[in-house]
Protein backbone atom coordinates (compact mmCIF):
# COMPACT_ATOMS: atom_id res chain seq x y z
CA UNK A 1 0.00 0.00 0.00
CA UNK A 2 1.49 3.27 -1.01
CA UNK A 3 0.84 6.77 -2.19
CA UNK A 4 -2.57 8.32 -2.01
CA UNK A 5 -4.44 5.08 -2.21
CA UNK A 6 -6.72 4.12 0.63
CA UNK A 7 -5.97 0.98 2.63
CA UNK A 8 -9.16 -0.74 3.77
CA UNK A 9 -7.30 -2.99 6.21
CA UNK A 10 -6.35 -0.05 8.43
CA UNK A 11 -9.77 1.57 8.28
CA UNK A 12 -12.14 1.41 11.24
CA UNK A 13 -15.81 1.78 10.46
CA UNK A 14 -17.65 4.85 11.76
CA UNK A 15 -21.00 3.13 11.47
CA UNK A 16 -22.09 3.67 15.08
CA UNK A 17 -21.15 7.35 14.90
CA UNK A 18 -23.17 7.75 11.69
CA UNK A 19 -26.23 6.03 13.15
CA UNK A 20 -26.11 8.31 16.18
CA UNK A 21 -25.59 11.36 13.98
CA UNK A 22 -28.55 10.45 11.81
CA UNK A 23 -30.71 10.02 14.92
CA UNK A 24 -29.65 13.42 16.24
CA UNK A 25 -30.31 15.12 12.90
CA UNK A 26 -33.75 13.56 12.63
CA UNK A 27 -34.58 14.58 16.19
CA UNK A 28 -33.47 18.16 15.67
CA UNK A 29 -35.45 18.43 12.43
CA UNK A 30 -38.53 17.04 14.19
CA UNK A 31 -37.97 19.60 16.95
CA UNK A 32 -37.77 22.40 14.38
CA UNK A 33 -41.10 21.42 12.86
CA UNK A 34 -42.68 20.67 16.23
CA UNK A 35 -41.66 24.09 17.46
CA UNK A 36 -44.17 25.69 15.12
CA UNK A 37 -46.96 23.95 17.01
CA UNK A 38 -45.98 25.47 20.34
CA UNK A 39 -47.33 29.01 20.15
CA UNK A 40 -46.14 29.69 23.71
CA UNK A 41 -42.58 29.79 22.34
CA UNK A 42 -43.42 32.18 19.53
CA UNK A 43 -41.18 34.90 20.95
CA UNK A 44 -38.18 32.55 20.60
CA UNK A 45 -39.04 30.97 17.24
CA UNK A 46 -36.46 32.80 15.17
CA UNK A 47 -33.41 32.34 17.42
CA UNK A 48 -34.31 28.70 18.16
CA UNK A 49 -34.74 27.87 14.47
CA UNK A 50 -31.48 29.60 13.62
CA UNK A 51 -29.60 27.73 16.35
CA UNK A 52 -31.03 24.36 15.28
CA UNK A 53 -30.30 24.93 11.59
CA UNK A 54 -26.73 26.01 12.31
CA UNK A 55 -26.30 22.97 14.53
CA UNK A 56 -27.56 20.60 11.81
CA UNK A 57 -25.34 22.31 9.25
CA UNK A 58 -22.31 21.89 11.51
CA UNK A 59 -23.09 18.23 12.25
CA UNK A 60 -23.45 17.25 8.60
CA UNK A 61 -20.31 19.10 7.59
CA UNK A 62 -18.32 18.03 10.63
CA UNK A 63 -19.29 14.36 10.87
CA UNK A 64 -20.76 13.19 7.57
CA UNK A 65 -18.30 15.24 5.54
CA UNK A 66 -15.45 14.68 8.06
CA UNK A 67 -14.42 18.29 8.03
CA UNK A 68 -13.91 18.05 11.79
CA UNK A 69 -11.03 15.60 11.45
CA UNK A 70 -9.85 16.21 7.91
CA UNK A 71 -6.98 18.33 6.68
CA UNK A 72 -6.83 22.05 7.32
CA UNK A 73 -6.78 22.97 3.66
CA UNK A 74 -10.33 21.64 3.22
CA UNK A 75 -11.53 23.76 6.10
CA UNK A 76 -9.95 26.82 4.53
CA UNK A 77 -11.41 26.37 1.07
CA UNK A 78 -14.87 25.59 2.43
CA UNK A 79 -15.39 27.50 5.66
CA UNK A 80 -14.16 30.82 4.26
CA UNK A 81 -16.80 30.89 1.50
CA UNK A 82 -19.43 29.77 4.02
CA UNK A 83 -18.76 32.89 6.06
CA UNK A 84 -18.70 35.03 2.94
CA UNK A 85 -22.07 33.58 1.93
CA UNK A 86 -23.50 34.19 5.41
CA UNK A 87 -22.26 37.78 5.31
CA UNK A 88 -23.82 38.23 1.90
CA UNK A 89 -27.17 36.80 2.96
CA UNK A 90 -27.12 38.96 6.06
CA UNK A 91 -26.20 42.21 4.39
CA UNK A 92 -28.04 41.88 1.10
CA UNK A 93 -30.95 39.79 2.27
CA UNK A 94 -31.93 40.04 5.87
CA UNK A 95 -30.95 43.64 6.51
CA UNK A 96 -33.16 44.72 3.65
CA UNK A 97 -36.34 42.97 4.78
CA UNK A 98 -38.76 45.83 5.51
CA UNK A 99 -39.67 46.22 9.18
CA UNK A 100 -37.24 43.41 10.02
CA UNK A 101 -33.72 44.18 8.93
CA UNK A 102 -31.91 47.31 10.06
CA UNK A 103 -31.52 48.48 6.47
CA UNK A 104 -34.98 47.39 5.39
CA UNK A 105 -36.73 50.72 5.68
CA UNK A 106 -33.53 52.48 4.69
CA UNK A 107 -33.47 50.56 1.47
CA UNK A 108 -37.04 51.53 0.82
CA UNK A 109 -36.24 55.16 1.48
CA UNK A 110 -33.22 55.00 -0.77
CA UNK A 111 -35.23 53.40 -3.52
CA UNK A 112 -38.28 55.60 -3.27
CA UNK A 113 -37.22 58.56 -1.17
CA UNK A 114 -40.27 57.83 0.96
CA UNK A 115 -40.97 55.96 4.17
CA UNK A 116 -42.27 52.42 4.06
CA UNK A 117 -45.79 53.44 5.08
CA UNK A 118 -45.90 56.17 2.51
CA UNK A 119 -44.70 53.77 -0.14
CA UNK A 120 -47.52 51.39 0.70
CA UNK A 121 -50.08 54.20 0.61
CA UNK A 122 -48.96 56.05 -2.51
CA UNK A 123 -47.84 55.77 -6.07
CA UNK A 124 -47.27 52.44 -7.66
CA UNK A 125 -48.03 50.62 -4.41
CA UNK A 126 -51.35 52.30 -3.72
CA UNK A 127 -54.40 50.04 -3.66
CA UNK A 128 -55.70 51.81 -6.74
CA UNK A 129 -52.49 51.24 -8.67
CA UNK A 130 -52.35 47.58 -7.65
CA UNK A 131 -55.99 47.14 -8.64
CA UNK A 132 -55.30 48.79 -11.98
CA UNK A 133 -52.46 46.34 -12.59
CA UNK A 134 -54.58 43.38 -11.50
CA UNK A 135 -57.64 44.48 -13.43
CA UNK A 136 -57.11 45.00 -17.09
CA UNK A 137 -58.94 48.05 -18.29
CA UNK A 138 -60.93 48.10 -21.56
CA UNK A 139 -58.63 49.31 -24.28
CA UNK A 140 -61.11 51.79 -25.77
CA UNK A 141 -62.71 54.80 -24.11
CA UNK A 142 -66.39 54.93 -23.16
CA UNK A 143 -67.12 57.17 -26.14
CA UNK A 144 -65.34 54.90 -28.62
CA UNK A 145 -67.37 51.91 -27.40
CA UNK A 146 -70.61 53.88 -27.69
CA UNK A 147 -69.71 54.80 -31.30
CA UNK A 148 -68.72 51.22 -32.04
CA UNK A 149 -72.05 49.94 -30.72
CA UNK A 150 -74.00 52.51 -32.72
CA UNK A 151 -72.17 51.40 -35.90
CA UNK A 152 -72.43 47.65 -35.32
CA UNK A 153 -74.97 45.70 -37.35
CA UNK A 154 -73.52 42.24 -37.27
CA UNK A 155 -73.60 40.42 -33.93
CA UNK A 156 -72.96 36.95 -35.36
CA UNK A 157 -69.44 36.63 -33.98
CA UNK A 158 -70.59 37.80 -30.54
CA UNK A 159 -73.55 35.44 -30.60
CA UNK A 160 -71.25 32.50 -31.31
CA UNK A 161 -68.95 33.44 -28.43
CA UNK A 162 -71.96 33.87 -26.18
CA UNK A 163 -73.25 30.41 -26.99
CA UNK A 164 -69.87 28.84 -26.34
CA UNK A 165 -68.80 30.74 -23.21
CA UNK A 166 -71.69 32.41 -21.48
CA UNK A 167 -74.95 30.63 -22.22
CA UNK A 168 -74.28 27.96 -19.59
CA UNK A 169 -74.79 30.55 -16.86
CA UNK A 170 -76.74 33.34 -18.53
CA UNK A 171 -78.95 31.11 -20.72
CA UNK A 172 -78.80 30.98 -24.51
CA UNK A 173 -81.38 33.75 -24.88
CA UNK A 174 -79.73 35.82 -22.12
CA UNK A 175 -82.61 35.49 -19.69
CA UNK A 176 -80.35 34.30 -16.86
CA UNK A 177 -80.21 31.12 -14.80
CA UNK A 178 -81.60 30.95 -11.27
CA UNK A 179 -78.65 30.88 -8.89
CA UNK A 180 -76.19 31.59 -11.72
CA UNK A 181 -75.87 34.49 -14.15
CA UNK A 182 -78.26 37.45 -14.13
CA UNK A 183 -80.66 38.44 -16.90
CA UNK A 184 -78.96 40.36 -19.71
CA UNK A 185 -82.19 41.29 -21.50
CA UNK A 186 -83.65 43.57 -18.87
CA UNK A 187 -82.43 47.09 -18.10
CA UNK A 188 -80.75 46.21 -14.81
CA UNK A 189 -77.00 46.00 -14.12
CA UNK A 190 -74.96 45.55 -10.97
CA UNK A 191 -71.68 46.49 -12.61
CA UNK A 192 -72.72 49.09 -15.16
CA UNK A 193 -74.49 48.79 -18.49
CA UNK A 194 -72.34 50.68 -21.01
CA UNK A 195 -70.29 48.58 -23.43
CA UNK A 196 -67.24 49.88 -21.60
CA UNK A 197 -68.57 48.47 -18.31
CA UNK A 198 -69.53 45.19 -19.95
CA UNK A 199 -66.04 44.80 -21.42
CA UNK A 200 -64.65 45.53 -17.98
CA UNK A 201 -66.87 42.94 -16.25
CA UNK A 202 -66.21 40.27 -18.87
CA UNK A 203 -62.45 40.95 -18.88
CA UNK A 204 -61.95 40.90 -15.12
CA UNK A 205 -64.96 38.94 -13.90
CA UNK A 206 -66.63 39.60 -10.56
CA UNK A 207 -64.35 38.60 -7.69
CA UNK A 208 -65.99 36.11 -5.33
CA UNK A 209 -68.84 35.37 -7.75
CA UNK A 210 -69.31 32.71 -10.41
CA UNK A 211 -68.65 35.34 -13.07
CA UNK A 212 -65.07 34.46 -13.96
CA UNK A 213 -62.54 36.72 -15.69
CA UNK A 214 -62.27 36.03 -19.40
CA UNK A 215 -59.05 37.96 -19.98
CA UNK A 216 -57.03 34.77 -20.20
CA UNK A 217 -59.44 32.73 -22.33
CA UNK A 218 -60.76 35.32 -24.80
CA UNK A 219 -58.80 37.84 -26.83
CA UNK A 220 -59.48 41.56 -26.53
CA UNK A 221 -61.29 41.51 -29.88
CA UNK A 222 -63.47 38.57 -28.81
CA UNK A 223 -64.36 40.29 -25.55
CA UNK A 224 -65.33 43.39 -27.52
CA UNK A 225 -67.54 41.31 -29.83
CA UNK A 226 -69.35 39.47 -27.05
CA UNK A 227 -69.76 42.70 -25.07
CA UNK A 228 -71.40 44.37 -28.07
CA UNK A 229 -73.68 41.35 -28.37
CA UNK A 230 -74.56 41.57 -24.67
CA UNK A 231 -75.25 45.28 -25.05
CA UNK A 232 -77.49 44.40 -28.00
CA UNK A 233 -79.60 42.10 -25.82
CA UNK A 234 -80.66 44.93 -23.49
CA UNK A 235 -84.36 45.65 -23.47
CA UNK A 236 -85.39 42.45 -25.28
CA UNK A 237 -86.94 41.25 -22.00
CA UNK A 238 -87.15 37.60 -23.03
CA UNK A 239 -89.84 35.37 -21.55
CA UNK A 240 -89.19 33.79 -18.15
CA UNK A 241 -86.11 35.97 -17.62
CA UNK A 242 -84.69 36.44 -14.15
CA UNK A 243 -86.04 39.45 -12.30
CA UNK A 244 -84.13 42.72 -12.17
CA UNK A 245 -80.84 42.64 -10.25
CA UNK A 246 -78.89 45.83 -9.61
CA UNK A 247 -79.67 49.33 -10.85
CA UNK A 248 -82.08 50.12 -13.66
CA UNK A 249 -80.51 52.04 -16.51
CA UNK A 250 -82.29 53.91 -19.27
CA UNK A 251 -83.85 51.42 -21.68
CA UNK A 252 -82.20 50.75 -25.10
Amino acid at each position, binding site marked *: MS*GMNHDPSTYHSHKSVYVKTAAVLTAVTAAEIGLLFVPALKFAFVPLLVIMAVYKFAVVVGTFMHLKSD*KNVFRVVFVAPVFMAIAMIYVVGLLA*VPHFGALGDGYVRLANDKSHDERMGLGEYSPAAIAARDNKLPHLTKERYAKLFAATQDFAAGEKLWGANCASCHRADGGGQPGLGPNMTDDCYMHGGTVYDLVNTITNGVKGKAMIAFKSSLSEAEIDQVALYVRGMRGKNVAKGKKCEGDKVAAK
Partner: protein
Amino acid sequence: MSAHAAEAADLIDHGHAGDDGHGHDELVENNYMKVPNVKLAIWTFLGSECMFFGSLIATYFFYLDKSIGGLLPKEVFSIGITSISTFILLTSSFTMAMAVDTAKSGLMSKSRNWLLITALCGATFVGFQVYEFWHFVHLGLTLQTSLFGSTFYVMTGFHGAHVSVGVIWLLMVAKLVHSGKIPAERAVFVESAGLYWHFVDIVWIVIFTFVYLLEFAK
Protein backbone atom coordinates in the same frame (compact mmCIF):
# COMPACT_ATOMS: atom_id res chain seq x y z
CA MET B 1 -5.47 9.49 17.17
CA SER B 2 -8.69 8.77 15.39
CA ALA B 3 -8.97 6.18 12.69
CA HIS B 4 -9.38 9.03 10.34
CA ALA B 5 -6.25 10.79 11.27
CA ALA B 6 -4.40 7.51 10.92
CA GLU B 7 -5.78 7.06 7.49
CA ALA B 8 -4.94 10.61 6.56
CA ALA B 9 -1.43 10.12 7.88
CA ASP B 10 -1.13 7.03 5.77
CA LEU B 11 -2.17 8.98 2.76
CA ILE B 12 0.38 11.66 3.46
CA ASP B 13 3.38 9.66 4.56
CA HIS B 14 3.79 7.70 1.38
CA GLY B 15 3.69 10.41 -1.16
CA HIS B 16 5.46 8.58 -3.95
CA ALA B 17 3.94 6.97 -6.94
CA GLY B 18 4.03 3.23 -7.32
CA ASP B 19 2.13 0.15 -8.28
CA ASP B 20 -0.76 -0.52 -5.92
CA GLY B 21 -1.08 -4.08 -7.12
CA HIS B 22 -4.45 -3.49 -8.67
CA GLY B 23 -3.32 -2.35 -12.02
CA HIS B 24 -4.66 1.18 -11.44
CA ASP B 25 -2.72 4.35 -11.76
CA GLU B 26 -1.63 5.90 -8.52
CA LEU B 27 -4.07 8.58 -7.43
CA VAL B 28 -2.66 11.95 -8.22
CA GLU B 29 -1.52 13.68 -5.13
CA ASN B 30 -1.18 17.35 -4.64
CA ASN B 31 2.48 17.45 -3.64
CA TYR B 32 2.25 20.84 -2.09
CA MET B 33 -0.90 20.30 -0.01
CA LYS B 34 -0.39 16.55 0.53
CA VAL B 35 -4.03 15.76 -0.18
CA PRO B 36 -5.75 13.91 -3.02
CA ASN B 37 -6.38 16.38 -5.82
CA VAL B 38 -9.90 15.11 -6.44
CA LYS B 39 -10.92 15.85 -2.85
CA LEU B 40 -9.35 19.27 -2.88
CA ALA B 41 -11.14 20.00 -6.14
CA ILE B 42 -14.48 18.98 -4.68
CA TRP B 43 -14.04 21.03 -1.53
CA THR B 44 -13.02 24.09 -3.55
CA PHE B 45 -15.99 23.58 -5.82
CA LEU B 46 -18.29 23.29 -2.80
CA GLY B 47 -16.82 26.53 -1.46
CA SER B 48 -17.84 28.26 -4.68
CA GLU B 49 -21.25 26.60 -4.45
CA CYS B 50 -21.70 28.25 -1.07
CA MET B 51 -21.39 31.61 -2.77
CA PHE B 52 -23.75 30.48 -5.52
CA PHE B 53 -26.53 29.40 -3.19
CA GLY B 54 -25.71 32.25 -0.83
CA SER B 55 -26.51 34.75 -3.56
CA LEU B 56 -29.75 32.96 -4.48
CA ILE B 57 -30.86 32.91 -0.84
CA ALA B 58 -29.83 36.54 -0.33
CA THR B 59 -31.84 37.51 -3.41
CA TYR B 60 -34.85 35.64 -2.07
CA PHE B 61 -34.72 37.54 1.22
CA PHE B 62 -34.00 40.83 -0.49
CA TYR B 63 -37.28 40.60 -2.40
CA LEU B 64 -39.26 38.92 0.37
CA ASP B 65 -42.43 40.85 1.23
CA LYS B 66 -41.85 43.16 -1.71
CA SER B 67 -44.21 41.35 -4.09
CA ILE B 68 -47.12 43.58 -5.04
CA GLY B 69 -49.43 40.80 -6.13
CA GLY B 70 -49.77 37.07 -6.45
CA LEU B 71 -49.80 34.43 -3.77
CA LEU B 72 -47.79 34.82 -0.59
CA PRO B 73 -45.37 32.15 0.71
CA LYS B 74 -47.77 31.23 3.50
CA GLU B 75 -50.59 30.67 1.03
CA VAL B 76 -48.68 28.06 -0.99
CA PHE B 77 -46.25 26.34 1.40
CA SER B 78 -47.32 23.04 2.88
CA ILE B 79 -45.26 22.17 5.93
CA GLY B 80 -46.45 18.56 5.93
CA ILE B 81 -45.29 17.66 2.43
CA THR B 82 -42.05 19.61 2.63
CA SER B 83 -41.25 17.99 5.99
CA ILE B 84 -41.58 14.53 4.47
CA SER B 85 -39.23 15.35 1.60
CA THR B 86 -36.84 16.99 4.07
CA PHE B 87 -36.68 13.82 6.15
CA ILE B 88 -36.05 11.80 2.99
CA LEU B 89 -33.13 14.00 1.99
CA LEU B 90 -31.76 13.89 5.53
CA THR B 91 -31.94 10.10 5.49
CA SER B 92 -30.05 10.06 2.21
CA SER B 93 -27.16 11.84 3.92
CA PHE B 94 -26.95 8.96 6.38
CA THR B 95 -27.09 6.32 3.65
CA MET B 96 -24.41 8.26 1.76
CA ALA B 97 -22.17 8.26 4.82
CA MET B 98 -22.69 4.51 5.05
CA ALA B 99 -21.78 4.11 1.37
CA VAL B 100 -18.46 5.87 1.99
CA ASP B 101 -17.87 3.95 5.21
CA THR B 102 -18.48 0.56 3.61
CA ALA B 103 -16.33 1.50 0.59
CA LYS B 104 -13.47 2.42 2.89
CA SER B 105 -13.92 -0.85 4.75
CA GLY B 106 -13.60 -2.73 1.47
CA LEU B 107 -17.23 -3.91 1.41
CA MET B 108 -17.80 -2.81 -2.14
CA SER B 109 -21.10 -4.53 -2.89
CA LYS B 110 -22.59 -3.08 0.30
CA SER B 111 -21.27 0.29 -0.73
CA ARG B 112 -22.95 -0.05 -4.11
CA ASN B 113 -26.25 -0.86 -2.40
CA TRP B 114 -26.00 2.15 -0.09
CA LEU B 115 -25.23 4.31 -3.13
CA LEU B 116 -28.34 3.03 -4.89
CA ILE B 117 -30.49 3.67 -1.81
CA THR B 118 -29.08 7.18 -1.61
CA ALA B 119 -29.85 7.81 -5.28
CA LEU B 120 -33.38 6.52 -4.73
CA CYS B 121 -33.91 8.91 -1.80
CA GLY B 122 -32.58 11.75 -3.94
CA ALA B 123 -34.88 10.86 -6.83
CA THR B 124 -37.82 10.73 -4.40
CA PHE B 125 -36.92 14.18 -3.14
CA VAL B 126 -36.86 15.50 -6.70
CA GLY B 127 -40.24 13.85 -7.26
CA PHE B 128 -41.65 15.71 -4.27
CA GLN B 129 -40.26 18.95 -5.65
CA VAL B 130 -41.78 18.37 -9.06
CA TYR B 131 -45.11 17.78 -7.36
CA GLU B 132 -44.66 20.92 -5.24
CA PHE B 133 -43.89 23.09 -8.28
CA TRP B 134 -46.79 21.61 -10.20
CA HIS B 135 -49.10 22.28 -7.26
CA PHE B 136 -47.88 25.87 -6.83
CA VAL B 137 -48.33 26.60 -10.52
CA HIS B 138 -51.87 25.26 -10.29
CA LEU B 139 -52.53 27.54 -7.35
CA GLY B 140 -51.42 30.41 -9.56
CA LEU B 141 -47.80 31.02 -8.60
CA THR B 142 -45.46 30.95 -11.58
CA LEU B 143 -41.98 32.20 -12.29
CA GLN B 144 -43.50 35.39 -13.68
CA THR B 145 -46.21 35.98 -11.08
CA SER B 146 -44.30 38.01 -8.54
CA LEU B 147 -40.95 38.69 -6.96
CA PHE B 148 -41.70 35.84 -4.60
CA GLY B 149 -42.47 33.48 -7.49
CA SER B 150 -39.31 34.38 -9.39
CA THR B 151 -36.88 34.22 -6.47
CA PHE B 152 -38.50 31.12 -4.97
CA TYR B 153 -38.50 29.04 -8.14
CA VAL B 154 -34.97 30.08 -9.14
CA MET B 155 -33.57 29.27 -5.71
CA THR B 156 -35.33 25.94 -5.06
CA GLY B 157 -35.14 25.03 -8.73
CA PHE B 158 -31.36 25.30 -8.71
CA HIS B 159 -31.29 23.17 -5.58
CA GLY B 160 -33.48 20.56 -7.23
CA ALA B 161 -31.18 20.61 -10.27
CA HIS B 162 -28.24 19.98 -7.96
CA VAL B 163 -30.02 17.02 -6.40
CA SER B 164 -30.77 15.66 -9.88
CA VAL B 165 -27.12 15.99 -10.90
CA GLY B 166 -26.21 14.26 -7.66
CA VAL B 167 -28.52 11.35 -8.41
CA ILE B 168 -26.85 10.85 -11.80
CA TRP B 169 -23.41 11.13 -10.21
CA LEU B 170 -24.32 8.54 -7.56
CA LEU B 171 -25.66 6.13 -10.16
CA MET B 172 -22.45 6.47 -12.15
CA VAL B 173 -20.32 5.84 -9.06
CA ALA B 174 -22.53 2.87 -8.13
CA LYS B 175 -21.95 1.43 -11.58
CA LEU B 176 -18.18 1.89 -11.30
CA VAL B 177 -18.18 0.31 -7.85
CA HIS B 178 -20.25 -2.56 -9.18
CA SER B 179 -17.91 -3.21 -12.10
CA GLY B 180 -14.85 -3.04 -9.89
CA LYS B 181 -13.50 0.13 -11.46
CA ILE B 182 -13.67 1.79 -8.05
CA PRO B 183 -12.04 -0.66 -5.62
CA ALA B 184 -11.59 0.06 -1.91
CA GLU B 185 -8.20 1.67 -2.60
CA ARG B 186 -9.93 4.34 -4.61
CA ALA B 187 -12.73 4.95 -2.12
CA VAL B 188 -11.91 8.65 -2.42
CA PHE B 189 -14.11 8.71 -5.53
CA VAL B 190 -17.07 7.50 -3.50
CA GLU B 191 -16.13 9.99 -0.82
CA SER B 192 -16.03 12.86 -3.34
CA ALA B 193 -19.50 12.09 -4.62
CA GLY B 194 -20.54 11.89 -0.96
CA LEU B 195 -19.15 15.35 -0.20
CA TYR B 196 -21.22 16.81 -3.00
CA TRP B 197 -24.27 14.92 -1.80
CA HIS B 198 -23.93 16.10 1.79
CA PHE B 199 -23.47 19.62 0.55
CA VAL B 200 -26.75 19.47 -1.35
CA ASP B 201 -28.32 18.28 1.90
CA ILE B 202 -26.98 21.19 3.93
CA VAL B 203 -28.23 23.65 1.36
CA TRP B 204 -31.65 22.16 1.91
CA ILE B 205 -31.21 22.41 5.69
CA VAL B 206 -30.74 26.14 5.21
CA ILE B 207 -33.59 26.56 2.72
CA PHE B 208 -36.02 24.44 4.72
CA THR B 209 -35.40 26.36 7.94
CA PHE B 210 -35.03 29.89 6.63
CA VAL B 211 -37.43 29.87 3.71
CA TYR B 212 -40.13 27.46 4.84
CA LEU B 213 -40.14 27.26 8.63
CA LEU B 214 -39.33 30.93 9.31
CA GLU B 215 -42.32 31.86 7.17
CA PHE B 216 -44.57 30.16 9.70
CA ALA B 217 -42.65 31.49 12.66
CA LYS B 218 -43.37 35.11 11.75
